[in-house]
């Protein structure tokens, strides 16, 4: 794990603490709860995206999949399913979409960029169709409490969804680091031809990767639904960039072979703290946009310079 992303996160928090007119408020547990609940969706997406990016792929459809699976869960809930099956339905649909992506990439030999760009449109369209071009309201169930800011048994401290995301992050980190599957994900990202030459069934592996990532995107969609208390087919437009940015800020390389779950989680937090902080500064929207852009670059640049000095 590289140190860079941590420094970046620390720098961002320090920056806003120093500039804030009420640092106590900014550093409060309440604000931390807010940020962590806001991060859940991107963080879950980033876990899946890390696997895909490490394997040398990319998935642009994550925003649409979030919308689709949110709608699926909402629709099934409204159709009277009990919460757990509805949640599972959303997650499974996410996984299926991922498998389709994987098959298109491996069987039809379409580059991941294009395959998932196509899926971006398809999943979004299907979401709107399922939802009948409206938002789908859901009955009150515990699914709606997954990503609340103030969890119900207060001893949970943060939303149950945050714990789920944390747990999954730990599991994914272990899988990537310590299982044959995980190391092969790195191998095909690092040198696909070499991996194939050593007898790694690269195509099957890719389908698994996209499928597993899809399950996580599906869960992310359920969380999104829970936050909005509705299935919304137009939600999360453009969030693929957020998710990919979290991974890349966390040290993932778009040419594959590099990346870590921990890094990506930090990356997701950096993005969330940036938005949260700049919103709390009371800057006008355009200043926020500018500052977020500048800080993203600086946070990553610091890491880049440090590394380039190290290799000299």
């Amino acid at each position: 794990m590289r140190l860079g992303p941590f420094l970046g996160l620390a720098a961002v928090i320090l920056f806003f603490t120093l500039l804030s007119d009420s640092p106590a408020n900014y550093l409060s547990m309440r604000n931390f709860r807010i940020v962590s609940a806001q991060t859940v969706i991107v963080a879950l997406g980033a876990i899946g995206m890390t696997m895909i990016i490490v394997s040398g792929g990319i998935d642009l459809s994550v925003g649409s999949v979030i919308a689709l699976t949110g709608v699926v869960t909402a629709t099934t809930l409204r159709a009277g399913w009990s919460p757990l099956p509805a949640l599972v339905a959303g997650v499974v649909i996410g996984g299926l979409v991922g498998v389709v992506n994987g098959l298109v990439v491996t069987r039809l030999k379409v580059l991941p960029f294009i395959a998932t760009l196509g899926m971006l449109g398809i999943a979004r369209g299907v979401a709107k169709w399922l939802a009948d071009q409206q938002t789908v309201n859901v009955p009150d169930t515990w699914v709606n409490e997954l990503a609340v800011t103030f969890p119900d048994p207060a001893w949970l401290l943060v939303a149950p969804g945050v714990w789920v995301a944390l747990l999954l992050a730990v599991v994914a980190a272990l899988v990537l680091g310590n299982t044959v599957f995980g190391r092969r994900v790195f191998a095909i990202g690092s040198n696909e031809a070499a991996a194939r030459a050593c007898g790694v069934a690269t195509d099957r592996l890719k389908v698994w990767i996209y499928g597993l990532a899809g399950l996580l995107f599906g869960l992310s969609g359920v969380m999104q639904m829970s936050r909005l208390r509705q299935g919304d087919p137009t939600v999360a437009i453009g969030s693929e960039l957020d998710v990919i940015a979290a991974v890349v800020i966390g040290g993932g390389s778009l040419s594959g072979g590099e990346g870590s779950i921990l890094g990506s989680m930090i990356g997701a937090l950096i993005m969330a703290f940036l938005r949260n902080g700049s919103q709390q500064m009371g800057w006008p929207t355009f200043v926020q946009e500018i500052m977020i852009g500048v800080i993203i670059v600086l946070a990553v640049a610091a890491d880049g310079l440090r590394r380039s000095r190290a290799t000299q």
Partner: protein
Amino acid sequence: MLTLSGIKKRFGPTVALDGVALELRPGRVHALIGENGAGKTTLMNIAVGALVPDAGTMSLQGDRYAPASPLDARRAGVALIHQELSLCSHLTVAENILMGQEPTRRGLLDWDQCRRRAADVLEQFHHAELRPDRRVGDLPIAARQVVEICRAIVSNASVVLMDEPTSSLPRADVDRLFAMVRRLRSHGVSSVYISHFLEELREVAEDFTVLRDGRSVLSGELASTTDAELIAAMVGRSVEDVFPRRDRAAPGDVLLEVEHVAAPPAVSDASFAVRRGEVLGIAGLVGAGRTEMLRVLVGLDRAAAGRVRVRGAEIRTGAARPWEVLARGIGFLSEDRTHEGLTLRLSVADNITCTRYGSCARYGWIARSEQARQAEQQMRALGVRARGPAQPVRTLSGGNQQKVALARLRHQSADIWLLDEPTKGIDIGSKVQIYEAIGEAASEGKGIVMVSSYLPELFGMCDRLAVMSRGRLSPVRPIAEWTPERVLEAAIGS
């Protein structure tokens, strides 16, 4: 064991294989020889299912054998050591060695066993210093080749195909490899061994097949065939006098002076001077720091100390600016042609002319026909085997790629040539052409620094020689004052 017959393969208009037969007998080592581009690598790729032949049949231990993928081949017990290194540079040595057969325990990767097995095989190879936890991307090229070899050995294959496994290895490692091959043989493993060094082949192999222009033209037992016969079968003519006879005129002015250059950890102290018209050889063991020293001189890496003067004018070595160095008339041939030597996706012509586009461009506009003409001229001079100057370098055979890299250096017409393993992967016939090209350049008044792990070539070509050992360059002495034993002694160092 493995029998191939009537194998044909075309790549678009190029006929790579045009009916090849090869019979690998159990427990034997089979030498596969042929000029660059004869089709050796293609044949090996077919044997492991990485390529599908257009025609022909294969059988393994009497059964029909038609691997659909390298995975199939591996399951059938056929492993290949690739000519162009195929390692995952982000992963560790151990992971690369055990890729495809990682040991597990309770579903998790068994790191301990992984390291142990990797360490074992490295130990057998006397490379215990190569720690299994190191990232392959951080290793020098020779160490990577060791990893590549270990990977094939560890796979417990019954047939091991070796495509120029020693092209980056120094003699000591070659010996270790041979010991390994013999041990495998004693366990009934058969191997195909591809190399451009006939003396190496004679050491390990019993049988041979010669490929020429995609056909198997001769096969038999090595012991009953002379070098001349082999070479004649390969090249279609006889080759004498490998090293060019040059009249070693008194060297001219000093072109390049290097004083106490250091770039820790690889290079700690190097000083030498090269004059017009001379070839300066640099010998040393793997990892001695020769490559690193050349990289510093070209500005690809920073020097921590020392001075470098080109024709008396000092160049900055503290900042990495290769384009400035090249503009001063230094030319560089990298030992790592796939990662640093060539832009593989571009055409032969672009690769040859890219260091001196000025010769065929006006106001930045490239005259395509002139570029092609100049490229063809160089290709002819070195005997590059390609469809034409527009062919992407990626689709050339390994040896021909190396020739393209040399052709670029010739085209650049730099005064000072820094050559790192210039004849790596070059066939016997072509080596002559390359040595001639180097000799010719020297007699034209260029100064040449030649790093090589192939001692005969250093003794054959150089006027003076220095030996690098653990980052320290010995004093430069005339070649007459060296013997192979003394070079080895200096390389091991004390």
